[in-house]
């Protein structure tokens, strides 16, 4: 027979179970807005029935229920959706960061508008043309000087702004790595707590919510994989290495890399191995720093080096009002010593020759047939691959051979200068093991570059020019007026007018001259009223002078802007796509894990009634006992 007080006990259980349910519902309601919170549900179960195989058993109905208990509190969550969100967050982090920084680059260019590098360049050319119109006027010379200084300052400014963006990105990388470590540490700590709770048989729902939230934050910074299936260990991977494994976490570190201007590489603190980063904000930041911003800086340098050298090349041939010649217009600082040598591998030995440009000493007719046959060999663009060869034959015109060279994809371009001499010029190098703006190898099996254009002394491998030789200049058929050494790096940071020009605008070489001695150098000026040299400089804007692989300055600049615009457009679109995707997934998750207040209120009412009813059970029991005790007593 059941105990007299069993009913009270049962009522108490009902009260406790419903209290728990009400508590959990309140927890849900109060956390309705909490980030990362998943709704919880109390699983009510029947208490084990009272089993009393006693004498009385046959006289009573079998197993008397013992009421309800709150068996456990479950978290309602779908790990599959979490993984999906993690993937999309990684791409959102990537594209959003990319879009934000490219936006900054676009602002630097300030295109399309009336105040940009391009419009200042337009004014620069116009100033030269005005000088050509009025070569003897000091006023127009001053305008040329002022416009050129504005141009130089604008280029400096562009460089500094791009560099500042690059430095900001570097800082962001260092901060993000710290953040990863921070989060990883927190995940580790949570792992410990969660494991402890699990071992006690509890459901640490809120801790798991916290951990999931951290994982989400982490996935936006870097691409991670999460292994949840392991019973005892929760593992977070970056690539194939684990960042957190149960109670362990591997620290990441940033180390400055001298090959990348001192910018940081990310390594595992313990193994010193590079971290493979394939997505997230960090990947985006690394790409921005090493590729996108760097290529902007490289492009600016390429633009500047060509501007400086092409203007100087013509300017050196011209004459100032003082009748003197062979002066640079822009300041030029070579990275080499006076013999054209520099130290390639930083071992303190001058081991390589670095020339940026070499001009032949023969005046060529662009449309005439060359009448010789052979093969030109240039260095490959990638260290270790096959050299680039260009075949030419008797029926090619000079122009056609130039086209063949420019189309070969070699990092050397060719054009005819203002006196129709063949020029070979180095471009940026795609393989960063090679220096920029250095002619690495020129070889011609035939006579084109040798006697025809007058660049090399001899044909064949024996006569080749190679930058790794310290006496490479000896293989050139021209003297020091006809080649230019490679400039000091980051030319855009130090572009300026030559001191001579700054101090005296009369030295700007507007006039042309005559070669009276026959040594190829113009030595007698034509006169103060001659502006033809200034006109030649103004003409540079249309001339196919090959700025890198682009034919003209305008073409080059347009390509740079349209490229950054296209990159920005793509990044913005992809960000929107990722945002949409995440919104949808988050809604899906909300649909499963989110708190619906109406639902909770309904539950609350229900549990309240349950609670009230259970209380009523106790009071009924109370009355029953009273009946027995007071009425049946003596």
């Amino acid at each position, binding site marked *: 027979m059941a105990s007299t007080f069993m009913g009270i006990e049962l009522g108490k259980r009902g009260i406790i179970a419903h209290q728990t349910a009400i508590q959990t519902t309140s927890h849900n309601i109060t956390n309705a807005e909490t980030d990362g919170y998943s709704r919880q549900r109390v699983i009510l179960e029947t208490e084990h029935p009272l089993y009393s195989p006693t004498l009385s058993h046959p006289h009573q109905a079998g197993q008397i229920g013992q009421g309800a208990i709150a068996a456990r509190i479950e978290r309602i969550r779908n790990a599959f959706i979490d993984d999906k969100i993690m993937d999309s967050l990684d791409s959102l982090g990537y594209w959003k960061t990319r879009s934000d920084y490219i936006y900054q680059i676009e602002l630097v260019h300030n295109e399309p508008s009336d105040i940009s590098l391009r419009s200042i360049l337009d004014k620069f050319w116009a100033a030269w043309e005005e000088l050509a119109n009025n070569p003897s006027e000091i006023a127009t010379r001053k305008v040329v000087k002022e416009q050129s200084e504005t141009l130089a300052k604008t280029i400096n400014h562009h460089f500094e702004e791009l560099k500042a963006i690059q430095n900001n990105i570097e800082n962001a990388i260092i901060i993000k790595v710290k953040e990863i470590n921070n989060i990883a540490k927190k995940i580790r700590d949570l792992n410990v707590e969660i494991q402890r709770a699990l071992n006690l048989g509890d459901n640490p729902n809120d801790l798991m919510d916290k951990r999931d939230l951290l994982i989400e934050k982490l996935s936006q910074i870097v691409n991670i994989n999460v292994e949840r299936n392991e019973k005892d260990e929760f593992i977070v991977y970056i690539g194939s290495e684990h960042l957190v494994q149960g109670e362990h976490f591997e620290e990441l570190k940033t180390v400055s890399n001298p090959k990348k201007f001192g910018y940081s590489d990310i390594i595992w603190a313990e193994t010193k191995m590079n971290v493979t980063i394939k997505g997230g904000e960090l990947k985006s930041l690394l790409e921005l720093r090493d590729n996108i911003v760097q290529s902007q800086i490289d492009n600016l340098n390429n633009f500047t080096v060509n501007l400086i050298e092409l203007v100087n090349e013509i300017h050196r041939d011209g004459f100032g009002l003082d009748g003197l010649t062979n002066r640079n217009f822009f300041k030029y600082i070579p990275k080499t010593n006076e013999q054209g040598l520099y130290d390639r591998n930083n071992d303190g030995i001058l081991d390589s020759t670095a020339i940026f440009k070499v001009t032949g000493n023969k005046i060529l007719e662009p449309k005439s047939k060359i009448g010789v046959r052979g093969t030109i060999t240039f260095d490959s663009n990638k260290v270790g691959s096959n050299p680039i060869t260009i075949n030419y034959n008797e029926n090619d015109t000079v122009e056609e051979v130039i086209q063949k060279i420019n189309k070969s994809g070699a990092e050397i371009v060719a054009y005819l200068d203002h006196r129709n001499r063949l020029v070979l010029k180095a471009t940026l190098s795609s393989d960063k093991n090679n220096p920029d703006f250095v002619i690495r190898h020129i070889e011609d099996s035939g006579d084109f570059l040798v006697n025809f254009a007058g660049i090399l002394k001899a044909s064949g491998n024996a006569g080749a020019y190679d930058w790794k030789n310290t006496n490479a200049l000896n293989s050139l058929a021209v003297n020091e007026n006809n080649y230019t050494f490679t400039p000091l790096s980051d030319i855009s940071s130090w572009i300026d007018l030559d001191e001579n020009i700054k101090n005296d605008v009369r030295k700007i070489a507007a006039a042309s001259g005559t070669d009276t001695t026959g040594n190829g150098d113009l030595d007698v000026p034509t006169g103060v009223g001659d502006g033809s040299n200034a006109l030649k400089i103004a003409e540079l804007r249309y001339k196919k002078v090959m700025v890198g692989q682009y034919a003209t300055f*305008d073409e080059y600049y347009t390509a740079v802007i349209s490229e950054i615009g296209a990159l920005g457009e793509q990044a913005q679109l992809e960000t929107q796509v990722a945002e949409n995707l995440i919104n949808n997934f988050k809604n899906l998750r909300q649909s499963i894990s989110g708190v619906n207040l109406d639902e909770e209120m309904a539950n609350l009412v229900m549990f309240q009634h349950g609670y009230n009813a259970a209380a009523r059970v106790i009071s009924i029991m109370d009355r029953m006992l009273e009946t027995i005790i007071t009425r049946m007593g003596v």
Partner: protein
Amino acid sequence: MIRITHNMMKNDVVYNIETHQENLDRLQNNLSTGKKVRIPRENPISATNAMLYRTRIEEIKKFIDNIEEGEARLNFAENGIRSIVDIFHRLEELVVQGANGIYSKEDREKIAVEVDELLKEVVQIANSKFKGESIFAGYQTNIEPFEVLKTKPAFADREVITKVLYKGDIGKNLRELEQQEYAPVNLAGNVLFWATNEVVIGNQDVSNYVANKNHKIRIDGKEILIQSGDNINAIIEKINNANIPVRASLRDNQFVIETTSPHELWIEDIEGGTFFQDIGLKIANQRPNEFANNVQKIGYNIFDVIIKIRDDLWKNDVASLGSEDLNNLQHSLNNLLTGLGEIGARSARFLSVKKRLNMNEVDMTDILSKTENIDIAKTVMDLQMLEYIHRSALAVGARIIRPTLIDFLR
């Protein structure tokens, strides 16, 4: 059935409102700046096109500037030449008068004085300056291109101009009219102020001359390459085939070079060459229009013509006044008129290029505006549409967020 939570509804409403606000911001920005594209990413193709159009417009403006300045110079030169032409018409009258037998020696001397004054005026015009630059001096704009030599001849009673030498050069002051299309805006004095063809006759036997190295000569600004082993006939042929108004020949084994249109010969050895020195035409470091002493140089500039008229009047040489002088005057006048014609032709070309450029500028400005300016009507419509949607979104948001079960529970 999808379970909808209050957070989902809230998120959707917030997301939509944010998207609308972003779009509203963009449209409002477009309207307030009038530009479609603020940064390249908004439309990379329009952005780069707009850049190219702007560059082109700047360029056209410069070309128009160039042309207008060039026109001013040409007009100035034209006025100068017209004055000289007027003077020549007066000279013509005076010469005809002087050649008339009824006038006395004294009358001719009086005419001679007037001619001398006219000569001074012509020299002054030939040395005239535009914006401080001599316009008939080629590149030598800082000097007076025509230098006068004064002496007192036996027949005159005072010191007079006896020779006018050209110290300018043949430089062409070019203006860019269109991309890489150039036109000169000056006329060199050695062409404009010449009356007759010039003949230069050497005094050496050059029949055995053979060039011993490759070098260049320059005639009237045109470079001619002489190769080692070329004999005199080969060189003469090269000169005659060089497409310049000059003809070279051998006369009694002597080198003769003459112009085929009236201008002063302009010959130089360059790049270390010595051809003209070798054949005795020039000595080292001479100006291109100067020759060795024993070289015969025949030809008049217009000053020579006036000087001769004046001297003939003074000398009472009626015969030469009536024939040779009148003839020379006619040549001078013809050459001046040719110069005027050339200026007229250039002005016409400038004008037509300017018209084209003006039209081009209008077109470019138009296409630039189409590329980067907003269509205001359309943008305003878009804005209003968006505002309407935004309002609805706000209204809906306010409605769905408000009522919950709590409102209905006591």
